[in-house]
């Protein structure tokens, strides 16, 4: 077990570092001279060279990459924003909790609504409940998130004036972004859950359970769901990462000061250190999330669990029984 976890952890670290290298390299080749971006089009050649030297971008690519990696992962220094003159790392620390909370609440809402919807559809296969869920899911999945967000603003903020449309300050600021962020996810999760449960509904061991005289409700909760929901778990994980990706647009629309808005503002002003920082943070977050999903997968699925408990099996088993 420990070995598996360590292995998976190493993989995660590798992915994060590789993502950092990738983003640095890509940004290095983005057309446009950073010094010109900072100083504007009318800067003199001498000033430009000066700024280039200050930023260290007159050094060879590999040296730059090396010092970037060293600063980021050893000194936890992601540089200073070119335009705000504040530490990127500090900016991140301030914004990450907000974005995380937003994404987390969205995914909780998504799962709480989507999974029961899917289960309900599958257990009433081809009846009206099923058709209703399928239609809703289809509509939810097709609605562009940012459009829903704008409609919510029009309706709740401008017409009814009950919820704020931008900024941060009270819990009310979270309501609309969470709602609009969850909508598309609900459709997707409901559909996925439905198909996972349907796959299990016809399984032989469900008939076996019924043949034992198990009540229908228990058949669903004890036999169908544990098997059907294992793959759903991964789906929730990937939905979470999609949610975080989606926050870039969502935070822009709601002027919600999280990592997403930080990033889109940085893109607009070409603030490279901030862009790099945001991408690395989001990549690290996603990689860690996938690690957690994988580990919990092992925990719920005995087939995978057994694979990494193998070494200690014999002793453990006898103890268990005794």
């Amino acid at each position: 077990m420990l070995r598996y976890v360590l292995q998976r952890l190493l993989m995660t670290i590798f992915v994060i570092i590789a993502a950092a290298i990738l983003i640095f390299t890509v940004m290095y080749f983005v057309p446009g001279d950073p010094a010109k971006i900072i100083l504007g089009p009318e800067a003199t050649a001498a000033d430009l060279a000066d700024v280039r030297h200050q930023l260290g971008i007159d050094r060879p690519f590999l040296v730059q990459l090396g010092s970037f990696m060293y600063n980021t992962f050893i000194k936890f220094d992601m540089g200073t924003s070119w335009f705000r003159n504040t530490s990127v790392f500090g900016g991140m620390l301030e914004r990450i909790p907000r974005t995380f909370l937003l994404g987390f609440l969205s995914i909780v809402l998504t799962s709480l609504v989507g999974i029961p919807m899917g289960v309900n559809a599958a257990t009433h296969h081809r009846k009206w409940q099923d058709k209703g869920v399928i239609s809703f899911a289809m509509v939810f999945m097709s609605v562009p998130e940012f459009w829903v967000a704008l409609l919510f603003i029009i309706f709740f903020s401008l017409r009814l004036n009950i919820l704020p449309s931008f900024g941060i300050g009270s819990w009310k600021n979270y309501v609309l972004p969470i709602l609009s962020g969850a909508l598309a996810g609900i459709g997707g999760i409901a559909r996925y859950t439905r198909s996972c449960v349907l796959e299990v509904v016809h399984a032989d061991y469900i008939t076996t359970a019924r043949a034992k005289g198990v009540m229908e409700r228990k058949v669903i909760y004890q036999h169908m769901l544990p098997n059907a929901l294992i793959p759903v778990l991964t789906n929730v994980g990937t939905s979470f990462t999609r949610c975080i990706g989606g926050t870039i647009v969502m935070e822009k629309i709601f002027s919600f000061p999280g990592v997403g808005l930080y990033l889109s503002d940085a893109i607009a002003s070409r603030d490279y250190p901030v862009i790099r920082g945001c991408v690395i943070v989001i990549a690290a977050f996603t990689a860690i999330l996938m690690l957690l999903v994988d580990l919990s997968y092992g925990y719920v699925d005995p087939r995978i669990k057994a694979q990494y408990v193998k070494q200690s099996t014999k002793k453990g088993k006898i103890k268990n029984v005794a």
Partner: protein
Amino acid sequence: MMSEKNDNLLSVRDLVVEYTSGGEIIHAVNGVSFELEKGKTLGLVGETGAGKTTIAKSILRVLLSPPAKVKSGEILLEGTDLLKVREDEMLKIRGAKISMIFQDPMTALNPTMTIGNQIAEGIRLHNDVSALEAEKMAIDMLQSVRIMEERFHEYPFQFSGGMKQRVVIAMALACKPKLLLADEPTTALDVTIQAQVLDTMRDLRNQLGTSMILITHDLGIVAENCDTVAVIYAGQIVESGSKEDIFDHASHPYTVGLFHSLPMWAMGEKRLHPIDGLPPDPRIEPNGCMFRFRCPRATKACEATVPNAELTSGHFCRCIAPKEEV
């Protein structure tokens, strides 16, 4: 006749089951009747798709509906019609009075539940016992199918096919049912394991006095395990009787054909004689003798309804020209 009836554990009368698939009706079981005496074993023999499994599942009422629907008939277990029993009472019958063994042990066990818990689950449902007692009883059951106690907490994927089927048997017999429905219990297993599993089943059944309906297409297994035999073709019983009636005096051309297509019966001959053609399309409304399309003895008269004639006492044959096999 009357005195015999009292010994009947189960009688099925005129059972008709249909499936609806894409707007079409599939006639799976078309008026099947049979009796099973206490403690005896009935062999249901027939090709794939003849409706054997459907019969077993309708007895236990575990057919998925839709698409399946029992159109008519009676299934009497000790006088009570199971088709009329309320669902909550049926829950007490399933697993306690009647239980079932399924064809494929690979898929019949819940992959995320330990085998011990799967056996104990049924025990707790039907006996008023604590979790600990149920566990003990389940361990006893495991041992009686020759699986070590230590494996109680293991999951199905850690077992071989033969062992899984023994677990399924332990599960099915855990509550000492009166009737066991065994749906091709050995088809999915290696030949060497088959005998072992069948032995386990026979020993346990003898201990508990359980009656059994054994569904199979393997006449060899029927010969070794059954008291009476019913041969099914296209959802109808075409011939039924004691094992001797069927094996020594096969009269229906389909039964005869079945024996001819077996290597062991054809031992003296140079080659096997398969039955020509394929089973009829189950979407066709059953009419007359459904075997007439493949029957070497078929005549115009076969298109009319063929009565189920009693040849000798207890030996029935649904053919207008039954022929004693020489």
